[in-house]
């Protein structure tokens, strides 16, 4: 082992205290766990930095999440505000800057259980959409928390479809002000985080009207609460939208505006401007309004979607080697449930997916950072590809991770259902990711639109962005696999994925064309093909993810067993996809029925191989017990003791319920009439 600080040391447990069923799993790892952790972190140096940050955060009692599962919505909100205030102090104390490498680890160590996250989106939108002058005015105020920002886009009646927003901002030349209004009940801003109780300012998206003409949706900075006593500003009605499936700590809010006037300078005007005389000027692409969404989309995939799946895999896999149930062989001890093929088939594909998405996310970040630099230079060329990419991947990854996380939850039997397992909260939180920052079906259709366009261009011999050049290269032929081992060849399965993606995209394009030629109106033809379009977009994203996984594995150094085990995971991810979507691959006979049986055989073999490394593979994610906050998933595997201890701490066991005296006693003594 190359790194001195092994996982065991940082967890603070001697091996003696580890449940022997879990300890034995760690003795047989085929690869170096610390090395893999370093690969995931992007280098051993990053691992050290991350652990140092985690250490600082977790040793501070203000950040403790110990009683989280027992707290009310109000308590959670207050704790989140307290943490937000404290984290700022802490970062100053440590000399960590907001955009430094530590800040992302701080957020992760807090598991997002902190207020004022929309404050960052507020700042980001000003940085991207604001002029230099606006940035100079607002960013220092925001960085110093002289105000607290939110981001008010979604309305009660409209979400992903931005053009449908109903809030209005009418320019009044005489006073050089915008007058903001919520004209209908469905126009009320609804859902923005930090807005129900905390925010003093928010970026409001509204339809801009100048002299009776509508110019579409634009962003405006609006003050909603007093900086002195925090009371609502005149004309502003705001509050909390009530309980949700999760995010108890966040005050998602509603906002109604009645003739609220803001100065002309409060419209974010890097790309569009209203001049004092009411002249409207546009600079650059109108699509830029989407950029904040794209950027939020990209940044959330890792923390809000992939990490939760990694945590769920850690909890479910560790628990599955501690839980023994029934017997595999008569007379023997009860078997670890992870030794059952059906349990492996539930959990190991999720583990492989977590790795696959970690790598595709890295790729997406590279793409995004390149695009961001170009846009700063007012070059918008890469925006369509970036937008299509981030849309499709956000949809695919959130959907996959959400269902993967639910599988982990259900794989833990009854105990998974207890909040103390940590899984329900992870699940209810990740669920939201399928909706926020763009509803997934709509996002996939956006990707599909891009793919159809590129397919047509490629067919006509025009150049297309690099990620879709494969569309020009439709090759006839069939899968060449002769036995099950052939399906462990990345070329074989990558080509199968490529073939499926091209087939679905081209057949949908053809169908669309047929409909239009037969006289169906364009929009109606599109609606009639949407089910297929969604399928095509998914196939494309799936293909790119498999291809990227293959390429990543090829680039890994072949030491410490890392490349081998990653190759197995890559194979598993790819074959699981073929196994579960057999119809797509069998459809045109690209893969035959006999070959499909080979796929299944190879896939099931892989489960048995990866089984041996399952625990080391989740250990490599390197979550601390405090971060997992799970009675089932702790590093030492003392599952039952912990479950019992935590349950006894439940307030329900400490308070005396009035229910007995009030209802049960009269019932048992047949004096119910007195109720």
């Amino acid at each position, binding site marked *: 082992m190359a790194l001195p600080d092994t996982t065991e040391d940082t967890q603070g447990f001697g091996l003696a205290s580890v449940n022997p069923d879990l300890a034995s799993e760690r003795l047989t790892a085929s690869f170096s766990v610390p090395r893999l952790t370093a690969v995931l972190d992007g280098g051993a140096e990053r691992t050290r930095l991350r652990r140092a940050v985690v250490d600082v955060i977790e040793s501070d009692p203000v950040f403790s999440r110990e009683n989280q599962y027992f707290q009310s919505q109000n308590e959670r909100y207050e704790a989140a*505000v307290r943490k937000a205030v404290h984290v700022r102090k802490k970062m100053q104390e440590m000399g960590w800057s907001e955009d430094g490498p530590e800040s992302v680890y701080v957020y992760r160590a807090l598991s997002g259980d902190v207020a004022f996250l929309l404050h960052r989106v507020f700042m980001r939108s000003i940085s991207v959409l604001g002029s230099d002058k606006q940035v100079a005015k607002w960013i220092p105020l925001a960085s110093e928390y002289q105000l607290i920002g939110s981001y008010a886009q*979604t309305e009660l009646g409209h979400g992903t479809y931005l053009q449908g927003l109903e809030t209005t901002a009418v320019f009044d030349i005489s006073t050089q002000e915008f007058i903001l209004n919520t004209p209908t009940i469905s126009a009320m801003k609804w859902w923005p985080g930090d807005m129900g109780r905390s925010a003093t300012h928010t970026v409001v998206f509204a339809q801009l009207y100048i002299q009776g003409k509508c110019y579409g949706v634009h962003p405006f900075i609006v003050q909603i609460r007093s900086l002195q006593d925090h009371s609502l500003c005149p004309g502003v009605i705001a509050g909390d939208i009530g309980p949700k499936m999760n995010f108890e700590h966040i005050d998602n809010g509603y906002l109604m505006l009645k003739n609220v006037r803001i100065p002309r300078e409060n419209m974010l005007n890097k790309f569009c401007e209203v001049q004092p005389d009411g002249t409207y000027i546009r600079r650059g692409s109108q699509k830029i309004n989407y950029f904040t969404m794209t950027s939020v989309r990209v940044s959330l995939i890792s923390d809000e979607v992939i990490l939760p799946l990694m945590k769920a895999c850690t909890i479910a896999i560790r628990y599955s080697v501690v839980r023994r149930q029934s017997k595999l062989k008569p007379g023997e001890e009860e078997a670890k449930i992870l030794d059952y093929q059906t349990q492996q088939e539930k959990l190991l594909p999720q583990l492989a997916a977590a790795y696959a998405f970690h790598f595709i996310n890295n790729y997406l970040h590279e793409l995004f950072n390149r695009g961001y630099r170009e846009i700063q230079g007012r070059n918008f060329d890469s925006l369509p590809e970036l937008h299509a990419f981030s849309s499709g991947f956000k949809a695919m990854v959130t959907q996959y991770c959400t269902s993967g996380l639910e599988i982990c939850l259900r794989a833990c039997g009854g105990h998974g259902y207890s909040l103390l397992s940590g899984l329900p909260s992870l699940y209810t939180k990740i669920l939201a990711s399928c909706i926020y920052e763009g509803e997934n079906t709509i996002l996939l259709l956006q990707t599909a639109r891009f793919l159809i366009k590129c397919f047509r261009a490629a067919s006509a011999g025009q150049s297309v962005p690099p990620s879709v050049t494969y569309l020009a290269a439709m090759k006839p032929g069939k899968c060449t696999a002769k036995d099950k081992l052939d399906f462990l060849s990345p070329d074989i399965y990558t080509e199968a994925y490529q073939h499926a993606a091209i087939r679905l995209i081209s057949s949908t394009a053809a169908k669309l064309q047929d409909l239009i030629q037969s006289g169906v109106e364009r929009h109606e033809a599109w609606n009639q093909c949407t089910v297929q379009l969604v399928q095509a977009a998914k196939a494309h994203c799936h293909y790119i993810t498999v291809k990227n996984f293959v390429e990543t594995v090829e680039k890994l150094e072949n030491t410490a067993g890392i490349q081998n085990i990653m190759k197995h995971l890559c194979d598993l991810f790819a074959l699981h996809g073929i196994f579960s979507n*057999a119809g797509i691959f069998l459809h045109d006979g690209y893969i035959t029925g006999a070959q499909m049986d080979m796929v299944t055989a190879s896939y099931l073999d892989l489960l048995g191989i990866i089984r041996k490394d399952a625990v080391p593979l989740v250990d490599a994610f390197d979550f601390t017990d405090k971060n997992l906050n799970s009675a089932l998933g702790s590093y030492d595997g003392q599952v039952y003791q912990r479950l019992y201890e935590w349950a006894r701490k439940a307030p329900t066991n400490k308070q005396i319920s009035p229910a007995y005296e009030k209802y049960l006693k009269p019932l048992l003594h047949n004096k119910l009439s007195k109720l």
Partner: protein
Amino acid sequence: MCSLSRAVITEFVFLCLSPEALVINDPDFQHEDLNFLSRSQRYEQAIRKSSLMVMKLREYGIADPEEIYWFKRTCLGNFIEPFGLHFSMFHKTIETQTTDAQKKKWLPLVRGVKIIGTYAQTEMGHGTHLRGLETTATYDPATQEFILNSPTVTSIKWWPGGLGKTSNHAIVLAQLYTQGQCKGLHAFIVPIRQLGTHEPLPGITVGDIGPKFGYDEMDNGYLKMDNFRIPRENMLMKYAQVEPDGTYVKPVSDKLTYGTMVFIRSLIVGDSARSLSRACTIAIRYSAVRHQSELKPGAPEPQILDYQTQQYKLFPLLATAYAFHFVGAYIKDTYHRISGDIHDGDLSELPELHALTAGLKAFTSWTANAGIEECRMACGGHGYSRCSGIPDIYVTFTPSCTYEGENTVMMLQTARFLVKSYNQVSSGQRVTGMVSYLNDLSRQRIQPQHVAGRTEAVRINDPVSLVEAYKARAARLVEAAAKNLQAELNHRKSKEDAWNRTSVDLVRASEAHCHYVIVKLFTAKLSEISNAAVCAVLTELCLLYALYGISRNAGDFLQAGILTDTQITQVNQRVKELLAVIRPNAVALVDSFDFHDVHLGSVLGRYDGNVYENMFEWAKKSPLNKTEVRKPYLVGLNDLWR
């Protein structure tokens, strides 16, 4: 636009008009929106309602466990109550597993709710695998008592509803030891709290297991026993007995316990149908109210239910809800039909029914579980708010994938029956009932072209022909699993190991079998419906259910040569056509489920569709909007601003 009235479908399909009037408008049952209450408050409300319900039951003279179950379902909606196990498992077990003397002593106490009981089976370390339970009951002939013990942490009883705070008695399942020998699991009535004071008895440690995903109002509990003694008469002795000197008398048949399991699992199938119906009602009504984006440039925003993708999400689920409804009714009827036989000692049909309900319990609960989530997501962001009601449906329903038998284990039980039947056929015997299609397999082996020859025969607009396609798929997957199992057996010595290495195939075979049964039952139902318009719309739903299932499992049908790729393309196309056909009746079809707004508990799914106004009213009631905001807030901010 709608061609059918809700009342017509309700009458012809569900054949019941719920006696909602009994309770729904009763002011005693009104309460604050539970979403705004803490767990302790929710528990207290539930106890209050349970107590009131007992009063109503006495008033109406309802005493049979099944009647009580339906009374609660129809009159109280999705009411979770700490007394639930008292009326179901506790009562039912005492009724069916006690001697006459025991009945005489306990039944009046149970029926009169002089005691409150629960059913303590699951332990921290063991659930579905009952033989692994560790709690012990050791007979002491000197005092004629059983001594109950929880010997390890994992043996602590964990999860039973109503155990934490409410019950004063429990039926405890424990390994019986007498004369130094373990005689396996038996049931005992154990008092756990002092009558009068409700204090735990000496030797009993009992409490609540803490917060869960849902079931906030339920005090799921733990129970630890240390040398706790109960009289010999507290063992349930209808079948097995321990005589005063400690002699153990064996029960006649172990199949008898199947009866209760079949009963409970049939209720879960019904629950799957109902929970999915509720979610569909909310999502479909809301999709008719929500307008978004544009289908046609310049035209007003359309109802989102007009988008093909939205229809594709929701209508197959609607069809599934109807399918499961018929399956639930079928199992219930079958159970009642053969429980007479069971009473007379004829247990011949029980193994098949047991195997079938195990699989259908798993199939329907998995499907409904995923379907409820689909419905929630089809409601966009607002589905995520508690006001949509779908989060509650989900968290209440989802544990049914685990309780009363973990689903994967259930599927494998069905598979065991299927493999057994297959082997019987292979050895020349004939099998009957739902698995009789396996009889044909032997003929196919003689004529290998048979399967391929059938390809042309599948008519995708004929439900009866589709039943045949599903049958062929089930036969093929059962045969493949059985053959793979045999191949593993030929390689290895251990039967268990071979079984484990085939279990993914076996689960697939069971799923295909259950899917076939459902399509078959749905299709059979069509001929029983006399109203032509209702029959027409149900035929469309049945076709959609069957074709959507083929489309989603195209690989199975293609690989087995049951359908060609051209036919699969036709199936996909037909599914989309059916979406448009069903669209005009969609709202009527969910209205027919006949859920009252109070039971639906959803702002998005309101019958009147006034969604947005009521969301705002609902939000204003949130406790966060009632508490003083500024104080704690300013403490934080002052700190921030130093």
